[in-house]
C-alpha cells in the first residue's frame, strides 16, 4: 500500500488516463453505435446486412486483436495516426497512442452499443405502435410520443452494462504502451514486489469506484425517468 500512497499523484494520473479513455471512446462509440443501430433497424436492406456483418465481426473478435490491428498491423501500411499530434485543441494536443487506443475501443464497443440499442427498440411492445397508429398519430408523433420514450428507458440497463464493460476494457490499452491504471499497477508491482497485494487492492478499489459511479449514475437516471406502466 505504501508504494501507492507515496506515489499517489501517479495513481491519480493513471486513473485519469483510464477515465479519459473511457469518456472519449464512450461518447464516440455511443455515436457510432447509434448510427449502426439505425442502419440495423432501418428499411434499407443493404445497410441492414452491412451493420449486421459489422456487429458479428467485431463482437466475435477479441479486443486485443483489434488493438493488434491498429497498433501493429496498420503502421506497416502507413497508418500510424501521427497526424493527430499536430492538431491542437485549446492548448492540448492528443498523443497518437491515445487516439489509436480510443479508435480500437470505439470500433469494438460500438458493436455492443448497436445491439443494446436494438434490444431496447425491440423491447417496446408492438401493441404500443399499433395503438399509436390506431388513434391517428402520424409517424413522427407516434415515434416521439410513444415509441422513443419507452425505448430510451428500456435501453438504459443494457447500455450501462456496455459502458461498464468499456470502462474495464480500457485496461487492454496497458498492453500497448499507455500508462493507464493497469499498466501503472504493473509498474508499481514490478518495483515493490513485497507490496503486491496492497497495490492490487488499491488499483482494484479504483476500478470498483469507477464502475460503481457509472452504475449509480445509470440507476439515478433510470429512477428519474421511470414511469408507472
Amino acid at each position, binding site marked *: 500500500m505504501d508504494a501507492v500512497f507515496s506515489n499517489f499523484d501517479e495513481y491519480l494520473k493513471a486513473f485519469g488516463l483510464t477515465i479519459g479513455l473511457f469518456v472519449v471512446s464512450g461518447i464516440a462509440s455511443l455515436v457510432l453505435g447509434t448510427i449502426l443501430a439505425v442502419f440495423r433497424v432501418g428499411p434499407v436492406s443493404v445497410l441492414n446486412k452491412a451493420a449486421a456483418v459489422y456487429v458479428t465481426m467485431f463482437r466475435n473478435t477479441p479486443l486485443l*486483436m483489434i488493438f493488434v490491428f491498429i497498433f501493429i498491423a496498420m503502421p506497416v501500411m502507413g497508418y500510424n495516426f501521427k497526424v493527430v499530434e499536430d492538431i491542437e485543441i485549446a492548448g492540448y494536443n492528443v498523443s497518437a497512442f491515445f487516439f489509436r487506443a480510443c479508435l480500437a475501443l470505439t470500433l469494438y464497443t460500438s458493436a455492443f452499443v448497436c445491439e443494446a440499442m436494438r434490444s431496447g427498440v425491440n423491447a417496446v411492445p408492438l401493441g404500443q405502435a399499433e395503438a399509436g397508429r390506431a388513434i391517428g398519430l402520424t409517424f413522427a408523433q407516434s415515434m416521439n410520443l410513444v415509441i422513443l420514450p419507452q425505448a430510451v428507458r428500456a435501453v438504459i440497463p443494457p447500455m450501462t452494462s456496455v459502458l461498464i464493460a468499456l470502462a474495464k476494457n480500457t485496461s487492454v490499452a496497458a498492453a500497448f504502451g499507455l500508462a493507464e491504471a493497469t499498466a501503472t499497477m504493473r509498474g508499481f508491482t514490478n518495483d515493490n514486489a513485497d507490496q503486491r497485494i496492497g497495490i492490487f487492492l488499491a488499483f482494484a478499489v479504483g476500478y*470498483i469506484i469507477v464502475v460503481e459511479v457509472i452504475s449509480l449514475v445509470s440507476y439515478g437516471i433510470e429512477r428519474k425517468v421511470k414511469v408507472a406502466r
Partner: protein
Amino acid sequence: MTTSVLFDAPGPRTVARHRVYTVISLVALTALIAFVVWTMYDTGQLEYELWEPFVTPEYVEYILVDGLLETLRMAFFSIIFAVVFGLVFGVAKLSDRAWVRWPAWLVVEFFRAVPVLLLMVFAFFLLAIGDGPLTSFWCVVIALTLYNGSVLAEVFRAGINAVPRGQAEAAYAVGMRKSQVMTSVLLPQAVKIMLPAIISQMVVALKDTSLGYYILAPGLTAVGKPIYLEFNNQVQVAIVITALYVAVNLVLTWIATKVQKRLVGEKSPLELSQVGNLDGGSNTA
C-alpha cells in the same frame, strides 16, 4: 421488423427513394472495400511471400497446435472451473443465512467489477514470476475463472430464481430438506434455462484468453509475434489469427442458439442484473 407497423406499406415514391438509398449505400460500401483492398495492394500486402507461412505445413501446425490448441485449452479449463465456482457462489448467494450470503455477494461483485487484465497481472506477479509455482498459462486460467465464475454465479442465481416458485414450495410440502430441494428440484430445471447463457460466457472466456498476451502466456496471440518478426507480415498475421478467433466464436454462438431453441424456446435468454446492482444479495426469492 418491429417498426414496420409505424409505416404504411411503402408507396411507389418511398420504394423509389429506398432504391436510391440502396444504390448509394452499395456504392459507398463497395468504395470502402475497394479502398481497403487497394491500400493493401499499394503497400504490397497482397504479395504471396507474406502469406506463404499460412500455407506452409510447419507454420500451420505451429499456429494450430501452439496457438489454437493452447487457447482452447485455456478457455476449456477456465470455463470448467468457472462453472464450479459459479455454482458454489450462485447457490451461496441464495442462502438463507446472511453470513453465507453477504461474503458470497462481496466476492462475486468484487471479481465482476475488476478488469480481467488486472487480475491476470496480479496472479502473474503473485504466482508465476521469479520462482513462482505456476506458469502464466495457469495465471490466465485463474483470472478467467474468477471473473467468469462470478458472472456465472449471477447466471446460476438468476436461473434458479427463474424456476417457478411452486416447484420449491411443492418440494418443501412433500417434506424435502433444503439441500434436497436445491439438488433434485431446482438445479435440474435451472440448468436447462442457463445452458445458453453458459455457452455465451464461453465465447467471452475464449476472447479473453487473448489477454494472456500481456503476461506472456501461450495461445493464438502469442504465436503471431515470432511469425511476423521472421517474415515481417504483421497485417497477414493479424488477419489470420483474428479469423481463427472469429471462426471458433461463431461455432460456439451457433451451438448456443441451437441449445437455446431446443431447451428454452424462442424466449429471450436470461436477463442478468448489471454489475453493482443495488439489490445484490437481498433478492432471495
